């Protein structure tokens, strides 16, 4: 069935994947609209890569349904693969082949004829700025350039949906920034991205994020939606950032103060969730009573990291109450 413009790029409904008696993916549902940059987040071993493998038809589904670009993954994984690009964590390039040869190989795999192949390679080389390295062995490229080449290989056949599995793991900050600029560029041209990442600043850049924790999606929405979730902003509380020179001591002190519901260190400051009736002046007073020097206290909107930390705690508390259905061993 041809995908019309309103068909979502990905619909996942109640995806389940078991390995023996371990459930790696447990009832995962989400929808990715066309043109979105969908950030799929979660700790290591939470099932991110497994979900990608299921959506690309590499792993059969133990349960649920998935359609990618309007194509049923269960029925026609081959056609799904024709219509997507995929870039894996380790960039998957042939190090003894040149930039040109890597591109040519992937182009031919997707069955581009010679004329189309040349045209697409020219386009990609121009877009990704690979020109100066065209005849160089990919082993000699730096991490950032390898990643650009890998992305180029993944989009030679003009897929409308590209999966990027931790695209920025192990590359320098400048290259990371440049990659995201490139993704925004491409996204403006209507390409949908499915990106997994550990970096919260990258999550903030996505137009849609989902957070998976031990096989279950525990948050799904735009970053703004998530920041406003009632679970993250319980009624009668607000968030503050406490800047203090000795953060760890300050944290210990803060945890003793009545009215502070939770507190975590973020770099050189503490993010705390506190009751409405504890005002900022009072809080500073109490901290200073414990000989903590406080530089600044100011109200703060929750960051995505706050959101995920909060949701993870709630989820753990929930699971501790009800007996676990399946043993939740970390997925190797």
């Amino acid at each position: 069935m041809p995908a019309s413009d309103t068909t979502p790029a990905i619909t996942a409904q109640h995806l389940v994947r078991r390995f023996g008696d371990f459930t790696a993916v447990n009832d995962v549902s989400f929808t990715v609209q066309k043109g979105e940059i969908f950030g799929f987040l979660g700790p290591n071993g939470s099932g991110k890569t497994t979900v990608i493998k299921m959506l690309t038809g590499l792993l059969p589904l133990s349960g649920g349904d998935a359609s990618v670009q309007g194509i049923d993954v269960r029925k026609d994984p081959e056609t799904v693969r024709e219509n997507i690009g995929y870039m894996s964590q380790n960039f998957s390039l042939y190090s003894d082949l040149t930039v040109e040869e890597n591109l040519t190989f992937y182009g031919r795999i997707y069955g581009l004829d010679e004329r189309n192949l040349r045209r697409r390679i020219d386009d990609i080389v121009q877009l990704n700025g690979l020109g100066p390295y065209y005849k160089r062995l990919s082993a000699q490229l730096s991490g950032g350039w390898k990643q650009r080449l890998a992305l180029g290989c993944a989009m030679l056949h003009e897929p409308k949906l590209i999966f990027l599995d931790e695209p920025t793991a192990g590359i320098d900050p400048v290259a990371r920034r440049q990659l995201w600029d490139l993704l925004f560029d491409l996204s403006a041209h209507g390409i949908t991205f499915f990106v997994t990442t550990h970096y919260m600043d990258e999550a903030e850049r996505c137009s849609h994020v989902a957070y998976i924790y031990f096989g279950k999606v525990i948050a799904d929405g735009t970053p703004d939606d998530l920041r406003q979730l009632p679970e993250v902003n319980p009624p009668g509380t607000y968030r503050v950032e406490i800047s203090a020179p000795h953060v760890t001591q300050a944290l210990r002190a803060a945890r003793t103060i009545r009215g502070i519901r939770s507190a975590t260190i973020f770099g050189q400051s503490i993010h705390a969730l506190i009751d409405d009736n504890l005002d900022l002046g009072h809080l500073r007073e109490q901290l200073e009573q414990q000989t903590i020097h406080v530089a600044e206290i100011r109200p703060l909107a929750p960051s995505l990291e706050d959101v995920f930390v909060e949701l993870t705690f709630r989820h753990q508390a929930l699971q501790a109450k009800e007996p676990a259905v399946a043993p939740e061993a970390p997925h190797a």
Partner: protein
Amino acid sequence: MLNPFRGFGAVFYKETLHVRRDFATLFFSLIIPILQMFLLGYGIDTNIRQINTVVYNADGRRESRELLDRLRNSDTFHIYRYVNNDHDLNDAIVSGKCRVGIKIPVDYSDKLIHQMPAQVLVLIDGSDSSVAGQAINVSTAIGLDESLRRVLASTDSAFAVNMRPKILFNPDSRSPNFFLPGLTAVLLLNVTTFLTAFSIVREKERGTLEQLFVTPVRPMGLLLGKLLPYLGIGFFELLMIVTAMRFLFRVPIHGNVFLLAFLSLPYIFVSLSLGILISSKATSQAHAMQLAFLTILPSIFFSGYIFPRETMPKFFYVISYFVPATYFINITRGIILRGAGLVHLWADALALFTMGSLLLIIAARRFHDKVITA
């Protein structure tokens, strides 16, 4: 609509590049079999000659010396040392210096002169069965011949039956003629099974296999694309081996060289497929290497290359039918030594081709099941 060989051209292109980039590996895998061929071709003589022999001649007269001359002239025995007592005779064998000990008793000549049966003791070291067998045969034959001559001389008549053996192929029993055609099968493994054994596991280690799975490439396209460049290399190696065999070792080729080249293709194909299957099973390149080594010994010992298949125990005889080298050695010896044609050898070629296809299909099925996850 689904093309089962999808991606073949792309993979073929890429593999050729890999081979070209890694020229050192290719060079060594081509040259090592040739070196081995020189070592084995010059170093090994399958004919048993000049067995070290210790002699205790207690008699010492003319008759006993004549007997020793006959033993020496047989080319089987080389008299290494004379001793003067039983103990030294025994000692020379136990110490491994000599394989055969001959004791001629003190009354040997007396008994012959008086037309009584004389006895000669032949001690044989049985630790190498083929040496022992040869020593028994030749010493018995000499004894028999000696007796007959004496009997016939006294009655003045001729041999009643005169056996005239004629060896049809390889008449002078040159070792290289027999040895090298079989060796070809073993040497080829070096550029076939060994090279492809790395091909897939290397991609597994690099993580590129995972990437390939997300493309529309089909298992058969992938496997054949990987296999075919090496078919060319294997074929080139075969031509090198056959050339060296013909012109350096002077092994005459009685049959059609082109038929030999043509019928080597199914053998190279099956060896490559075996490598591919190993590669799909192995978890690391070191693992693949070990599995590849496993294929060598059966190719040497169960193929009839060294030991005739007919003398194997039933069980191993049956096993030898599953060893590809069995068929190829039949083909090489058939064409090179006996001048056999396609009429005689088509079944061997067909068996090889079938085996190769089966192995490849099994390997491809492993990809279908996606057992191979990084």
